[in-house]
């Protein structure tokens, strides 16, 4: 199969993720969208790996997964902490760091 199909799917998923991040206000959904973007990138990495016939891209994909797992742990932890303190679980309301 032509590699461009894989890349097209990857680009579509990536754009969906990016659009979600820009439009959604719930941090939980933002995290989900972030996951979508990371995995879209993984898909294209693996496609390229297949195209060149070596494993470099797959190793990259695994590293990205590790990073994604870490990010999810921290992100979920933050969301739980925000919730416990009784703060609004809303990315727009949490804007105390404005200049």
């Amino acid at each position, binding site marked *: 199969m032509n590699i461009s199909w894989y890349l097209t799917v990857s680009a579509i998923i990536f754009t969906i993720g990016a659009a979600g991040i820009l439009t959604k206000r719930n941090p939980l959904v933002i995290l989900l969208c972030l996951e979508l973007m990371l995995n879209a990138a993984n898909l294209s990495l693996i496609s390229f790996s297949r195209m060149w016939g070596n494993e470099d891209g797959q190793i990259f994909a695994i590293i990205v997964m590790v990073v994604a797992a870490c990010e999810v742990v921290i992100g979920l932890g933050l969301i739980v902490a925000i919730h416990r303190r009784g703060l609004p679980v809303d990315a727009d309301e949490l*804007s*105390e760091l404005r200049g």
Partner: protein
Amino acid sequence: MSLQTHAWLVLAFPLAGTILLGLLRPVLSGKKAGAIGTLAILLAFANGVAAVIKLQELPSESREVVSSLWTYANTGGLDAQLSILIDPLSLLMVLIVAGVSTLIHLYSVAYLASDEGYVRFFAYLNFFVFSMLVLVLAGNFVLLIVGWALVGAASYLLISFWYRRNTATKAGIKAFVINVLGDVGIVLGTILLLGATGSVDFLTVFNEAPQVFNSNDGTLVAACLLLMVGAFAKSAQVPFHTWLPDAMEGPTPVSALIHAATMVTAGVYLIARMHPLFELAPTAQVVGGIIGLLTLLIAATIGLVVTDLKRVIAYSTMSQIGYMIMAVSSGIYVSGLFHLMTHAFFKALLFMAAGSVIGAMAGEQSLNRMGGFRKVMPITYACFIIGGLALSGMPPFSGFFSKDDILLGIGELGGWHWILYVGGYIGALMTAIYTFRMIFRAFHGDPCEEAKSLEAGRLYHAPEHRNPADGTLEDTGVGFPGSKHHIAERSVAMTIAMGVLAFLATTAGVLQIPKISHVMENFLEPTFVGAKHFGVEIDTSLLLFGMGLGTVLGLLGIWIAWTLYVKRPGSAAAIEARFAGAHKLFANKWYFDEAIDFAIVRPFAALGRFGQRTVERVVVDGGITAGPVSLARVSSAAVRSWQSGLLRAYAAAITFGAALVLLYFLLQG
């Protein structure tokens, strides 16, 4: 072990003690810390004794050993080693410093028993002894300056030991600033000598000096005078003396150790150490002699009127150091150092005994409130009498031989030195008067409330703790030896320390008696053999006249004090009223503090205010920095508005930014 090893161990033990006590401060209990501190100094003293024995085994002409541990710096013609000079002079100082320090550590174990800063105190005290030993053992100017500055720092820490007392911290700062002034003098003097001789090593400089300098060479005189500034600042000589009386804010063992026995004699040591240079600069010697005389007379007159027990002894210290400076500046080094040693014994003894009285008075130090302690504190009284007789120069106590040795040596010099000779005897008379004025006022007369309470078997405790210097209320955690009070003679450790010193103060005179015993002279011969007036025979008639005059003046002084303060107690006030002008001058310490304040402090403070109000506010803030500051403010305000705090706005900026970059490269391609 070799001589060098012993000498290095002298330095190692107090340093180890300092570090150990400093690190273990949170876990050590009081008594253990005292034991560690005392043991460290005792071991240093033992090594000092061993070094002396080893040194005496060497032939006389090779008793100057330099030992270098490593190279400090070797660049641009400067070769500074971490080296010590072991010779009779440095070892004599080591024995005095370590020996007296051991006794004072022992005294402090009991004296500060209830103080909260007990471990800290011993860490500081060990640090002081280490610094002082570095100072006296230093084999070159660099290490001398290091020791000199460390001693100043240790003195600051110990004067301000009760740091919650405002007066104590102020006194510490004053002492430190004046001492640093002296440090600057020594550094500048060293630079001059380095420039002329190309070396910082003592022995090299001393050997080079006669070839490089003519007698009274301008550079050499300047260098010697700068070194003297250091000596005067450390030894509290006019006009750098005002810190010493204030330093009495420190705990009494500190006064005994630093401000009587060891640190303040560093100036005397310095001049004796530098004697090959001073012999080539007679002008500097004259300056030293005059300053010594002025100090001894001014301090004695203040001692006559001051009413604080410890400050009387402090002024007498200044006065006695005046004798020593006078002696070493006139080239009679052995006498000066002999007096340094006996003075260390009897002055430390007097301070320790004063600590005992202050303990019984619950921290009160004013002679006006004391009286009648003779019966209730017999040991303290005996110590005061022994110390007082030695200080007044009464035979056969040690002070008699050492003070007469100085005055005889100066009398033998003749010429203009007769001024010093006469002034020295006038000072001796005043010494006897103020010493026994202090003793009679504290121990004779009607017993004060505290003495009565002690007689009834209980120790007087002040209802509220007040700072003896300015009368302000203070919290009980600080100040006079902790919240509980001790009387020296009721504690074994303190009594032992005082007993040993009393014995030494009584008998140390036998080390050097004209025409009979020459232990000091023989021991110090290798250091001073090249000096002009070394080993000059004293004329017998002068000797007998001097000794007789010294005794008569001492007795006269004691008789005057007896008449004024015991026989006719009111007559002192009548004399004060009669000579109101002189009394006011003496009681205000010759207005030295005010003069320094007027001549130095106020102009500098005014300059500082001018700098702050005019130069900084108007010129710097208004003129120079105004433009850049407002530019930064405007531009940052513009950038700041982008920082909205909205997460999604940031994400959008990143996304579209990355998209734009991508687009740019795609279109390029």
